[in-house]
């Protein structure tokens, strides 16, 4: 009896083999998809806060924020207020002493160029901003530059000190290179360096804009300026979105 049985089994072997026509998938996909967090990141510039305490001639505050739009793209903005008193000296003589005070807002985009490992949320960004500042300049004190000392051994003091120039404004384009690192869960520290290009600059003809809040020093005969920030920010998660779709496109 068993002899027949074995014979039948052998006879059915091809059918068994047919049943195995679908190969075993050894690299089966993980069905758990990784979802990236999307949301709003808000924070403040720590360098301006520290400078406000350390430097008695400076007070400033900058709030930073960004909102994640896609895997790489962020909407980003900064809003700030700065007051800075400066002077220009020549051999211990004050040529002029002035104070600039005003607010600015910068808005634009950041593009994250850094591909994170699983679970990481760091960013190396390049981006652009359009910025607008409204401010005033006060000329506290000044002297009149004169190289010949025939009449006066020192520079004469200016006729009208303590003049305030109001209603000044400027706008500029900014190129931003930055990095953000997640230090603890949802807490980020970041830094950015910016090159600004002045587009408009409304200044008083008696005293030009030498320093613009948010833009930093204005150089004679150049539209470029350089500024930076060091921020600490908190990420508010709003929703999660899978990155899976993009990976399928890759394959």
């Amino acid at each position: 009896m068993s002899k027949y049985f074995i014979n039948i089994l052998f006879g059915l072997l091809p059918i068994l083999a047919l049943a195995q026509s679908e190969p075993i998938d050894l690299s089966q996909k993980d069905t758990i998809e990784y979802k990236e967090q999307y949301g709003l990141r808000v924070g403040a510039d720590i360098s301006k806060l520290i400078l406000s305490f350390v430097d008695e001639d400076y007070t400033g505050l900058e709030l930073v924020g960004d909102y994640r739009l896609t895997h790489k793209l962020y909407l980003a903005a900064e809003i700030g207020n700065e007051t800075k008193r400066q002077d220009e000296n020549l051999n211990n003589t004050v040529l002029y002493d002035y104070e600039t005070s005003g607010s600015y807002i910068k808005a634009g985009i950041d593009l994250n160029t850094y591909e994170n490992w699983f679970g990481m949320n760091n960013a190396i960004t390049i981006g652009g901003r359009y910025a607008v500042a409204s401010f005033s300049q006060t000329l506290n004190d000044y002297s009149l530059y004169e190289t010949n000392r025939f009449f006066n051994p020192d520079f004469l003091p200016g006729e009208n000190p303590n003049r305030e120039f109001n209603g000044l404004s400027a706008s500029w384009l900014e190129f931003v290179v930055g990095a953000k690192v997640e230090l603890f869960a949802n807490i980020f520290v970041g830094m950015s360096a910016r090159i600004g290009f002045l587009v408009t600059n409304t200044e008083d003809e008696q005293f030009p804009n030498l320093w613009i809040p948010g833009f930093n020093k204005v150089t004679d005969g150049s539209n470029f300026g350089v500024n930076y920030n060091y921020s600490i920010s908190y990420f508010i998660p709003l929703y999660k979105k899978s990155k899976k779709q993009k990976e399928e496109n890759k394959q």
Partner: protein
Amino acid sequence: MKKIIPILLIAVMLYYVSSCEKDDICVDGDTPLLIVGFYNVEDTTAFKRVESIRIRNIDIDSIISKDSYKGAFNDRSNIADSILVPLRSNAVTTMYQIISGSQDDADTGEETGNIDTLTISYDLGEAFVSRACGFVVNYNNITVTLNEGAENWIQDISVVQPNVANTDSIHVKIFH
């Protein structure tokens, strides 16, 4: 983390680039000096030489000499075309005695040259030149009057540039 290092470097580089700028030294301007040219009264386009000139400021009673200021001339030298003289920035007039053929009397030590007195009146103005220079003085609406004496060597005066904002060309012509 390695990718952050280049960004740090860029940030540092930007800082250094921004800290060395051309506008740290004042080269763009200065409070101007008055340029006075000496012309021939018969041929008003030609310069005429002044022999042994001495210029004395009446306001501070001081004689201009080579080391008085940059661009000054030697006392009692011969001037072929023009001279630079400073103006007072804390007053609206400056008075000069312009002495032609200046010489001291051998016995008494008195001036024997021909002394003509000029009064220069003007309005003071201020102008911001550049970040490194700050403010300078400009002299506007210059008028020059010759105090008439017994025998003036200066025949006529004409102000060609009433606003003195630079030291590039002649502001006042003296005909003799």
